[in-house]
């Protein structure tokens, strides 16, 4: 993994993505990127287009135009399976787990281990599940209860473990902390930190700034289907970002990073400093 020698090729880049539904431009020329060992928040109001953008990456929608580049090569992502083949795993808002199955059964859903007769090898799956979940969350004990009996944080652990089990390198988390308590939010935060240390790239999708501000290294902010701008978390305050989300306006001191969607953006400036985020306009 490229964690020490940071050659800094992005894990994933989405370039100039367009998609419209019945004449409404849901995503209009947005470009974002994600590097290994990095947590990037994608922020915006409901309807800003962030979920649509991410669903294009996870294969749920197909872009009308634009490129997706994984590890420097253009990737065709037409369905969830293609995304997975590119090591992109998505953890959905409604926690895509089957409530009636237990942790191990959920971890291996769709990719069960079988014995030589083609029957499910429950023991081997439970063994592997225990291993992965223990690494993520040493307190996890309820291996044989249906996941409906688990707390929100434990369910997130299962969902993340599921992604890890299949060697995800890019993890997309849709509203990772929605419907979680304070303690559980903290737990998910710790999980994310650990994944980051393991060199994964993580995209956090949220409409709530507070959920993701402290977890993210960078933020992409969207409004009305366009990218307002991309900023490093350390360069901005909560208020700066709120301004971006609500007004679609870049903070004054970062105007040079503004995207085409920013209301007071000077347009795509060709002489912008070669920050990671200034791919826009290509």
């Amino acid at each position, binding site marked *: 993994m490229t964690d020490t020698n940071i050659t800094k090729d992005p894990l994933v880049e989405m370039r100039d993505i367009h998609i419209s539904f019945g004449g409404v431009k849901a995503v209009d020329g947005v470009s974002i990127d994600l590097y290994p060992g990095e947590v990037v928040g994608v922020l915006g109001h409901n309807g800003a287009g962030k979920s649509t953008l991410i669903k294009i990456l996870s294969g749920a929608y197909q872009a009308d135009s634009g490129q997706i580049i994984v590890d420097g090569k253009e990737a065709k992502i037409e369905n969830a399976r293609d995304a997975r083949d590119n090591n992109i795993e998505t953890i*959905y808002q409604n926690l*895509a787990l089957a*409530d009636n199955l237990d942790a191990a059964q959920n971890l291996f859903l*769709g990719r069960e281990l079988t014995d030589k007769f083609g029957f499910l090898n429950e023991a081997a799956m439970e063994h592997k599940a225990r291993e992965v979940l223990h690494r993520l969350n040493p307190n996890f004990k309820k291996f044989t209860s249906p996941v409906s009996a688990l707390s929100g944080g434990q369910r997130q652990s299962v969902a993340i473990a599921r992604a890890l089990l299949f060697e995800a390198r890019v993890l997309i988390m849709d509203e990772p902390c929605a419907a979680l308590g304070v303690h559980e939010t903290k737990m998910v935060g710790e999980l994310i930190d650990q994944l980051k240390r393991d060199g994964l790239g993580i995209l956090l999708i949220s409409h709530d700034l507070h959920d993701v501000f402290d977890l993210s290294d960078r933020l992409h902010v969207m409004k009305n289907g366009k990218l307002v701008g991309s900023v490093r978390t350390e360069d901005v305050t909560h208020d700066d970002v709120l301004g971006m989300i609500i007004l679609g306006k870049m903070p004054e001191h970062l105007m040079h990073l503004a995207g085409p969607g920013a209301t007071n953006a000077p347009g795509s400036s060709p002489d912008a400093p070669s920050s990671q985020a200034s791919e826009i306009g290509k």
Partner: protein
Amino acid sequence: MLRLLSKMEVDRRLVGLAVVLLIIWVGFDIASGGRFITPRNIFNLSVQTASVAVMACGMVLIIVTRHIDLSVGAVLGVLAMIMGIVQTDFLPQFLDYNHPLTWVLTLAVGIVIGAAIGGIQGVAVGYLGVPAFIVTLGGLLVWRGAAWWVTQGRTVAPLDQNFILLGGGIEGTIGATWSWIVALLAILAIAYAAIMERRRRLSFEFPVKPVWAEYTNTIIKAGLVLVVITTLNAYHLPTRAAERLLENKGIPVTPENLEIAHGIPIPLLIVALVAIILTIVVKRTRFGRYVFAIGGNPQAAELAGINVKRMTVAVFALMGVLCAISAAISSARLQSAGNDLGTLDELRVIAAVVIGGTSLAGGLGTIYGALIGALVMQSLQSGMALLGVDTSLQSIVIGLVLVLAVFSDKYFHRRYSDPSA
């Protein structure tokens, strides 16, 4: 007591059902002056339950995937008619009457057509997106009408001599010796499964049940098998039938020789086979796992790469196959196929499944629960018939029991097994 059961990892709902069944049996036995719990009545009960029980096994999968099949009774009707025609009109053109292949080919035709009928309904549900309730409500009318069209309403009889063995009856049993052999095999299988499961868990150092619990579990299961087989072997053929049988085989008729046990009726054997195969499918195969995943969260199943539409077709096709087997059992039992065969069976089947603890919301249900549910329904009906209760009152009681069963299940489930509620 509850803690003891959880140590033994016994399904609490199963224990509840077993207790209900026991109360019904003992109650009817007392009320009828000891005529209910007799080898003869138990034998008849098992034969009468068989047809509904086979279909109930498939209905579990349908309901677990959040669908319903209201057409099973009508599908049974049309398949019984088709199989009747195949064995009485069609096959005799090529084979002798009562040829040993007749029943095999007949059943095969029924199973293929059953799978096709189920598959068509599955396509309408899965690919065309019509709710299963509507598709199978339409199916109920279509297939019942089709059953009439097969012969313009004429009842098909008599059926093939080998085919009618599928329905039980005097010769449709496997006799005492084979019954003991089946019992022995069943007990060996129970012990083997327990040992293998424990060994597998130990090899991965997972927690296992205490040894005493393993022994108790195995002994209870083996004991049940023995009790059932002993009971069935204690039911002897009527003297006249025994005489005829001995004469046919050229064995001298003496008082000792006349004591011929029925043993396991063939329909019960079919039920056991279907239930065992489907239990293995549900617990040990991808197919079964996907059925439950779809019931738990169809979206999650889809995202996990499961082809939900194709699974829907497969589950409905399987239901059609089981309808064919049930059609064979019930027409064989009556030794004729009439176009009203299986009328209202859809309700008996669904009631059995629901009493057996399958949730109409999907994702939850067991094959063995459905079997006990079917037995509860049939016990109530036979018991009341034995006591001479009016048929009208019988349906009132059974209707009330169904509602009560679902209510009590919901109530106890909420109170005792869901810590988050």
